[in-house]
């Protein structure tokens, strides 16, 4: 079985990049993560994850334009690579397969 080396946090970050589309950079991703998961993530952790993912070939990046609110510095904009996309799909397939395999009595009922 092909292993996709992704930690849980990395997976979430990767998904967030996909969610944000063309505007995925450090601050936006941190904000989106905050908004979507309610977790207070530190910006350094996000950066670390982003660079790890880029090293693994699941993200690619380029430098965007500079803005005044950034003190004239450019953003690094990330986007998901094909490898990243496939990995996300793989993970999802495994999850779905697992969900499908659960018998109705297999999980205690949760009231929503």
């Amino acid at each position, binding site marked *: 079985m092909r292993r996709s080396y992704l930690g849980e946090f990395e997976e979430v970050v990767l998904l967030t990049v996909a969610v944000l589309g063309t505007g995925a950079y*450090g601050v936006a991703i941190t904000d989106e993560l905050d908004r979507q998961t309610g977790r207070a993530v530190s*910006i*350094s952790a996000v950066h*670390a994850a982003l660079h790890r993912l880029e090293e693994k070939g699941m993200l690619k990046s380029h430098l965007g334009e500079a*803005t005044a609110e*950034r003190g004239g*510095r450019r*953003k*690094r904009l990330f986007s998901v690579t094909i490898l990243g996309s496939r990995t996300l799909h793989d993970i999802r397939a495994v999850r779905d397969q697992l969900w499908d395999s659960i018998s109705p009595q297999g999980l205690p009922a949760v009231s929503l």
Partner: protein
Amino acid sequence: MKPVQPPRLASRLLEWFCAPHLLEEIQGDLHERFVRRARLFGEQEARWQYTWDVLKFMQPQFLKRKPDDSGKPQTTAMLRNYFTIAYRTILQQKSYAFINVMGLALGLSACILIFLVVRNELTYDAFNQKADRTYRVTVHGLDYNPSVSFAIAPAFRTDFPEAEQVSQYYYRGEGQIQVGNERYLEESYAFADGDFPQVFDFDWLAGNPKTALQEPNSIVLTQTMARKYFGDQQALGKIVRLDNQWNLKVNGVINDLPSNTHLIFNFLVSWETIRKESATTNFWSINGGYLYVVLPEKLWAERVEARLPAFVQKNWGNQLTQDKGDLILQPVREIHFDKRYLTQITMPRSKETIYGLAGVALVIILTACINFVNLATAQAVRRSKEVGIRKALGAFRRQLVGQVLGETTLLVGLATVLALGAVFAFLPLTKPMLNIRIDASQLTEPLVMAVIASIVLATILLAGLYPAFIQSGFQPIKALKSRNTEVGFGNLTLRKGLVIIQFAITQVMIIGTLVVASQMDFFLNQDMGFEKEAIVSFPTGSKADVLRQKLQDNPGVQQLSFASAGPAFNNNFMPFSSPELGMNENDVTELKMVDENYIPMYHLAVLAGEPIIKTPEGDTVNNVVVNQTLVRRLGIQNDADAVGKRVRAGNRPAIIRGVVRDFQSESKHGKIRACVLVYNPRAFWQVGVKLNPQNMRETLATIEKDWTELNPESIFRYEFVDEHIAKLYKQEETMYNAFRLFSAIAIIIGGLGLFGLVSLMAVQRTKEVGIRKVLGASVGSIVVLFSREFVWLMLIAFVLAAPLAWYAMDAWLQEYAYHIQIGPAIFLIAILVTFVIAALTVSYQSIRAALVDPVKSLRSE
């Protein structure tokens, strides 16, 4: 409104630790959040948050710098480039590289060799641990005598109990050793007492140094002797017979003596063997040897020396009424340099000669360095483009200096390897050529290696620094703009100056060699005042009368004479005075005891009176013949007036019967001294035989047969007088050899340099020569053009070299009692030789340059 700014300290911190390639995005993100937070929560809170964020970025992955593989070049890349360029330059300019490396290799090998020789000289007798507090007791009476009477040692032991060691050494010279039925004649041996091995630290291969020489009839062999007598067998405990007189037990074997000691012996015999019959109480006894004392560490030699007069007075006061005699403590390490002792077994060498040799080494290495500097600066012009480009591309000056020094190091390193090889190859030749034994093992001693390393280092700096600064100093614009970078005027004069120095060195060396050579020639061919052709000398042995008869019957023998010693053979001194002529103080004179044939056979010229007259039996007044020096010493100007005068010779009355012209009576080349010839058959130790020039070999064979019949126990050994004289000047000859060798090296190096320089010049002036030829210049005029400058430089050099060489060589000649005068001929020859050398080197290249077809040299621009 002034925009809010994140805390400066935190920003700085981030800039400091964060990897540069990540900095921009991180800083941007943090800034963005800071601005938002400042708007939402206030500036203070935002600042705190910002700092906190920055701190959280302190993780390895943000600290780690991105591996750099394109941007900044690695230092090794530049080094590689230097090597490549150096390699290409050498390949491109093979002949210059060759000249440089060969010159340096020659210079370095001469330098290393001279260093080894000088070190050998300056460390004489330093092999003893106690060398610094070991002294030889010598006597200063009428002259300086290294031997003292055997009476001194026992008295010294009693009166100076604080002396650590007092050791008697008695050099005997030739000795005959018999092992079984084999007989060997050995050049030198000595008696030494039991303390001797404690004074001198020999390398003991067998036996106990403490006891080896204590017992009577003991012998200690050097390794070579032990091998010769016993092969691979154990020598210890074996018996050998010495001089048909003593049976000696081998009590020890020592390594052969080092090359740097004043001691010479093939074996040592215990002093106890002859102690009883040598005992004497006479201060002036001619029975004497070297006396060594080792003083305790803290005792000053001056203190002991101050007590010596009292010591002499106390023990021998009654014997010193007529002649005064002072004992001297001579430091053992000074023995090799002390020229006062004329009768020493090994000739001392003056420190000046040794320093002179060191100076020659310096001069040689200087010449090689001058070559290098000359060629490198001349070549620097060709490389100006390279330097210009390097500078334009941002090379620092010190990098360029480093590059040139590096190239120099490369060449010097190559030269060093060659030089060490040459030194190794030459070391076995030092013994026959320079009379100094240098073992290859000396090269690996730490001190020697350190000195060699510093010589090499000094050479690198001396040769490399100047070209490095010249080459790195080029202005890039000038260097790149013009096709021919003109060399600065100062540079040119420097090069001329260096050529002058080199010419001067060469001329000094040539003059020096010529002076030494003619002095050598003078030594060997000077009129010694006696006949030396075809005369052999050998010991009388026993039965002198039978031998005389046999020799007289031998048809090959023209003349023969029995005497104590031939002219220029070993010395016998005695005091003489003449109260009758008002000369009461004793002076020293050479004494020869001769028969009536001595004067005619050696062709001594009788100037007044008669030749040798036997002293009648029972007569108390000796009849003597004296030389002119003695007559002058007596204050008599007319030789004839001296005949019939009374003198005291050896404290006995004598009457002068004849006067002979001065002849070289002593073996050493000091001034001829007063000499007395007296008839005394008891001292006829040597036979001199004048041979018929025909059939010399057969005659010698017959003599040997007769002699051996009379002395069956001994080995016959003869020596031709002229060969003996040549041997006396062996030290001068080795010195001459050294001088010749090293000046040849200096001259070759100088010639190489000149050759290289001229060929570089020819290349640089190719176009000029081409144009001149087109305009009608002849080959001859171009050769003259090239040579003219060098002739000038040579003449200037000569003006410098001549007085210098004259001064140095005159000082050297002053060491000899009889020496040549430095005439103008020598200087003339020197300048001619330099001229020829310069002409040969210059003309080859300049003719070649002049013969080049101008079409070729002017074709491309």
